[in-house]
């Protein structure tokens, strides 16, 4: 069995599972965010009274942090009241940040667990060796009632990353290239595992980027085998025992792909699809009105660090705005401590509250018709960050900073090429 199958089998109380089988799994942690008031509604519509196990439930007020409308404020009020009534202690209020970063910051995710959140990017947690998957409101409500959810055991695709990453190229560029080659629906209903020497050398932040973006190829979940880097990262965070699952020798993957990253250039996904990917140089010089740095994909401390490195002592282009959204409170504090915030603000950046911000076109950095944005977030669907006729290019945090500096799409390699 694959490690993912072993996680599902254990959660289902079975000795083994097979691809395609439908299994009922105990959920170790179920998360709800503030877009999903329907979860509470469905809970009561289905006759719910008491949450099955409030210790295994977490509520995030991250998508509307802080509320911009009375309706949003009212939805968040209902979440707080539900949490208090149901003794849900993990109420992550508007000061905390994006659910996925909060989960790892607080050590609530660990290898071998089953994590279900009302958020498609829950695939992120494959980076620590957890089974993480996104669901809708009513599925989450069934977990509130029963502590369990059904899953179809997925086919698993292996993506092996070989070579050495060139300076100026990041995990975001790698995964964009992979999605560009394989397509936005390549992994629908399936799981994606990353292996190879490139992965072995990646930091946890960069591993999270790979796993986070598998959602954009349709994946149900993702996986990176935990190693010494994982365990060191988790050592000071996770305060409980966990079991690292390992894939049995001879496991037969549904498909295997190898990518050599040694000659990869920074990549961009152009409007309006995440698989519309080319070298950034194809679009160089195109004017950019907004550069957006943040989210569960590209708003971690290392992302702010690379932007600060590019922008230190400089000014962003006068026709461009740079919106920065630290992924979480902890990231924000680290950015202050390390001086990235000061560097970026002096360069002309606008900081907003840790959370999802404009990534999903609700508030804090919306785009007007005809504007172009380079973003370190995950999606460039029509209308995703505002007007339907805004043009969104998805790239690495370095590509975002370089666009802000020059007011146009710019290959960031020139600012980073001299590294090591």
């Amino acid at each position: 069995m694959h490690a993912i199958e072993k996680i599902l089998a254990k959660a289902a109380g079975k000795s083994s599972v097979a691809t395609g089988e439908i299994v009922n799994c105990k959920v170790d942690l179920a998360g709800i965010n503030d877009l999903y008031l329907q979860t509470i509604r469905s809970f009561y519509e289905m006759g719910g009274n008491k949450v099955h196990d409030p210790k295994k439930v977490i509520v995030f007020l991250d998508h509307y942090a802080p509320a911009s409308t009375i309706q949003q404020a009212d939805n968040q009020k209902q979440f707080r009241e539900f949490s208090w009534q149901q003794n849900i202690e993990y109420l992550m209020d508007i000061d905390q940040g994006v659910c996925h970063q909060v989960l790892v910051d607080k050590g609530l995710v660990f290898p071998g667990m089953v994590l279900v959140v009302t958020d498609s990017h829950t695939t992120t947690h494959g980076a620590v060796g957890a089974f993480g998957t996104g669901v809708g409101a009513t599925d989450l409500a069934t977990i509130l009632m029963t502590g369990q959810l059904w899953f179809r055991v997925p086919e698993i695709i292996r993506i092996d990353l070989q070579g050495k990453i060139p300076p100026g190229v990041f995990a975001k560029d790698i995964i964009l290239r992979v999605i560009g080659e394989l397509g936005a629906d390549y992994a629908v209903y399936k799981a994606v595992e990353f292996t190879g020497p490139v992965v072995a050398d990646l930091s946890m932040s960069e591993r999270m980027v790979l796993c986070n973006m598998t959602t954009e190829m349709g994946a149900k979940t993702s996986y990176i085998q935990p190693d010494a880097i994982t365990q060191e990262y988790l050592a000071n965070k996770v305060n409980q025992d966990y079991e690292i699952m390992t894939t049995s020798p001879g496991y037969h993957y549904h498909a295997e792909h190898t990518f050599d990253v040694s000659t990869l250039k920074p990549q961009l996904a152009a409007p309006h699809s995440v698989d519309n990917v080319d070298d950034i140089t194809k679009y160089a010089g195109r004017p950019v009105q907004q550069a957006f740095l943040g989210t569960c994909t590209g708003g971690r401390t290392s992302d702010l660090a690379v932007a600060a490195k590019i922008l230190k002592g400089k000014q962003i282009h006068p026709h461009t705005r740079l919106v920065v959204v630290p992924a979480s409170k902890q990231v924000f504090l680290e950015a202050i401590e390390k001086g990235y915030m000061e560097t970026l603000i002096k360069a002309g950046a606008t900081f907003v509250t840790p959370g999802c911000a404009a990534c999903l076109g609700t508030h804090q950095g919306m785009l007007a018709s005809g504007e172009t944005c380079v973003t370190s977030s995950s999606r460039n669907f029509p209308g995703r960050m505002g007007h339907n006729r805004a043009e969104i290019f998805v790239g690495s945090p370095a590509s975002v900073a370089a666009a802000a500096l020059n007011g146009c799409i710019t290959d960031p390699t020139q600012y980073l090429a001299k590294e090591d």
Partner: protein
Amino acid sequence: MQTEISGRAFVFGINIDTDQIYPGRYLDLTDPADVGRHAMEGADESFVKNFQAGDIIVAGTNFGCGSSREHAAVTLKAVGVGAVIAESFGRIFFRNAINLGIPALICPGISRYVHTGDKLAVNFESGEIRNEATGQTIKAQPLSAYIMNILSSGGIKPLIRQQYQQS
């Protein structure tokens, strides 16, 4: 659940994400009737005006990809969609649709056989889709017994309510 329905087709392309089905700026709405006012607005602003209860959405591959927002299923249920037939679905949308009792059929090749406005007759048991405008018939993949059970119960809510009361 009716075994056979008929309705007019509204045809969409590939990778219709849930932001197009239900734009992010309306996510704070919670009443299904309000949610229904913005169905498919990101892909076709005139959709709600032209769509009638019982009509059918036909799409290419990966319909409902992207965000897990249940609003995308709620909005289609609110406008009374008879069925959603796509070459493939984003997995969370598919689960959400089935959970709310919306028949979601996977039918590779359907886009080539149907134009907007064609009248379709859909049989959920056999998976047969008949285009009454052209006389052509195409077969969708049969729904699993697990999913048929949810649909014939009117969605997951009545099922869970029943199980919960029994336990």
